[in-house]
């Protein structure tokens, strides 16, 4: 499916490009804008970004695949990111991970059939003092228990 940036987003891109001395360097913010519009970074998105920045598609692909926060496939409406790194693990991060996996029948990288939830095990999110935590899309939820997590996820609309 062809991808074109919206007029509004083209303006956003023009604005963010002022922060960098050349077009190519704006690729990371441009990819974020693309992801916001499209939900994930498809090959069509990469092609359009390459065209816009006057670089090759393989260069764009190289950047997209290096960074974990660019989604290489579709994610759910609510993307659940569970930290299981040491500080969270010591406070029950894996209890939360397992609870979510079991309750919503999700594996790492999986999406529920209705497209509502997707699950990802993530590395340290910088919430060690408020562990365990999950992030849902852009928001952090901290000092959790498995019960609280389910309550939060079930209340998502």
């Amino acid at each position, binding site marked *: 499916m062809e991808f074109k940036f919206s007029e509004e987003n083209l303006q956003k891109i023009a604005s963010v490009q002022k922060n960098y001395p050349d077009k190519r360097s704006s690729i*990371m913010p441009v990819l974020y804008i693309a992801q916001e519009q499209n939900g994930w970074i498809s090959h069509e998105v990469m092609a359009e970004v390459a065209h816009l920045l006057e670089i090759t598609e393989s260069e764009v692909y190289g950047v997209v695949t290096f*960074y974990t926060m660019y989604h290489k496939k579709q994610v759910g409406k609510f993307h659940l990111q569970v930290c299981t790194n040491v500080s969270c693990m010591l406070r029950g991060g894996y209890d939360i991970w397992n609870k979510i996996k079991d309750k919503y029948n999700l594996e790492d990288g999986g999406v529920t059939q209705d497209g509502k939830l997707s699950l990802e095990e993530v590395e340290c999110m910088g919430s*060690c003092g408020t*562990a365990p935590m999950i992030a849902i899309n852009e928001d952090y939820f901290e000092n959790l228990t498995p019960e609280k997590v389910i309550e939060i996820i079930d209340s998502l609309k």
Partner: protein
Amino acid sequence: MHRIVLPDIKNLQEIDVYLANQGYYGARLAFQKSPDDIIEIVKKSGLRGRGGAAFLTGLKWSFMPKVTSKPKYLCVNGDESEPGSFKDRQIFEFNPHQLIEGILITCYAIGAQTAYIYIRGEYHKWIKPVQKAIDEAYNNGFIGSRMKETFGTQFSCDIFIHKGAGAYICGEESSLMNSIEGQRAYPRVKPPFPAQNGLWGNPTTINNVETITNVPPIIKNGSEWFSSIGEPKHPGTLLFGVSGHVNKPGVYELPTGTLLTDIIEKYAGGVINAKRIKCIIPGGTSMPPLKGDSIEGLKMDAESLRAAGSAIGTGGIIVMDEDTDLVKVLARMTKFYYHESCGQCTPCREGTGWMLKILKRILDGKGTKSDLDLLISIANNIDGNTVCALGEAAAWPVKFTIARFRDEFENRVNESIQIPVNNKVHSMRKTKNPIDNIEIR
């Protein structure tokens, strides 16, 4: 008690409150001096980098060429991805203007006209207050072309936020620059050093967020004031982030040289259920772990920790109680480095995976005694053989955890497949098959 970076002032993140508390006064003072004077003051203060290496900040600034036809840059490292480290977000949230003021002074000292604050992509919530503070500072003429009127100086600079996208390696300074340039964030071979050949090939200085936030008070109060706080060789305060098995985890700003036991007992509320500490990581997971019974009298500063066989790192303290399964902890840490290895250098790319496989084998109850030596051998072959320090960061936990807790590892490899009940990690109690959680992807 001194609080330099996070003073106890309500709503200090608001520009009005910041201004009412001598905000941007340090920048005003700085612009009346010469850039060399500023570098000299910071050198004399003894300020060391807060990002892990504890390098002298003033000395780093002095590496920037005085005369050059190229633009110069400042990068402020707020990637904050070291497991156990969660201090910079406190600055972003509660004192962003002091960070901005520090950036202005630093840019003036090194002659940079552009600064990038690199903030990890996951920190959406903390990018907002920094962007708000930057916008306010622009509106008030503290950043940008209007600085000339505001401060009566010929100097001006711009500050931009560059948002990361989830890669631990971007905390390494040359990766960070490649990331700002929009590349895959591979670390660069040094030399050339960033001061000669940094961002887009131009002279660049990279400092940690906490380091820069220390600068305005140093300019306001003088180098002697700063160097008299804490340990003389590593003066000032540090933001200690305490996590793990303590009653009150959190960030505590305390003078360097504060006793580790005091941080845990007096500030972090002691160990949960008053258990004994088995293992403690003093400065983020990349730093060698210490035995719980070896920390009595240990001061938290660069020199003291080096003498104790570890390092201050980012001041991220992870406390593990007597019931912690260290094999599982080490496997989880190794999984992290395996995931975050950028793949550029073979020893790190392959070695981290091999170490993870062996640790998983030991966790599965299928390890042998020779596995422990094999792990150390792999770690030794990573250590020192990579472009950047991620190699060491992956190798050290393996080497030092096994060396310092050899009994626990030997017991494990001598055992059958069953894991003893009293040897389970707190967090794993309810899981059906905890070993499955450490999978190789």
